[in-house]
């Protein structure tokens, strides 16, 4: 087996195990055994279990280029950009819900793993919301809201929509696609923060 193929099969097996049991309950030995290699071979590809976990997270994320493309491909206003990058985010999650299983388990495991998950997933989108709301507040284009709380509102509603559609498969939301659901939630979000779409002259 070529090195690239070996690496890909280690990643695939590790992803299934991390999504099933979380970070701490999976050992390097178990991953190596399932792949059919020795732990020494696994360590040739990944220096540590942490590095392997990061690589699995990366493999589940949409490439940065896709986010750049989404950010640039259309109007520059806050609502349009947030909608486009959120769509990239949820499309990738929908493609492989193992991401959300890993997130749920990371939240239960707490500490470093949960922090790492936040940094690799939510951080940039949450920072974008906070920073943009600070700017919009200066231009009086949003209500007086706490931008950090508003970012949490966004994160909570997107995450709950993903749970309902991709993990629980809730009957209540079967008639609506995740993309459409997110679109409606975003509209509610913009109303909640009193976002005024008109640019100040």
């Amino acid at each position, binding site marked *: 087996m070529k090195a690239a193929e070996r690496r890909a099969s280690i990643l695939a097996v590790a992803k299934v195990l991390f999504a099933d049991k979380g970070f701490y309950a999976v050992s390097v030995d178990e991953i190596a055994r399932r792949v059919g290699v020795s732990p020494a071979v696994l360590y040739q590809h990944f220096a540590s279990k942490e590095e392997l976990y990061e690589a699995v997270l990366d493999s589940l994320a949409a490439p940065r*280029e896709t986010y*750049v493309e989404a950010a640039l491909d259309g109007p520059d206003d806050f609502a349009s*950009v947030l909608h486009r990058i959120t769509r990239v985010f949820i499309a990738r999650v929908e493609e492989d819900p193992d991401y959300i299983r890993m997130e749920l388990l990371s939240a239960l495991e707490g500490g470093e793993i949960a922090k790492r998950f936040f940094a690799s997933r939510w951080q940039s989108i949450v920072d974008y919301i906070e920073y943009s709301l600070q700017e919009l507040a200066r231009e009086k284009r949003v209500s007086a809201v706490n931008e950090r709380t508003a970012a949490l509102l966004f994160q909570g509603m997107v995450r709950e929509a993903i749970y309902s559609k991709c993990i629980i498969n809730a009957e209540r939301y079967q008639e609506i696609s995740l993309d459409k659901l997110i679109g409606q939630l975003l509209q509610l979000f913009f109303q909640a923060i009193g976002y005024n779409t008109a640019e100040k002259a």
Partner: protein
Amino acid sequence: MSEVNQELDARGLNCPLPILRAKKAIAGMAEGEVLKILATDPGSVKDFEAFCKQTGNELLQSQSAGDGFEFLIRRQ
């Protein structure tokens, strides 16, 4: 070394803010002019490569500078 016509300080900002700022800055520049961008987000190296690919502008330089990165982009 290319002459810099405008500078954008995107230090402390994470994706997508530096690229949105760059897009806005470049839109106000003339063809052939050069924008210098300072950034600290490690992902900005990939981001500005993608930015130039997407917008058709030329990435003249991408290098580490101090605690961050420095990019030179020529408007096409």
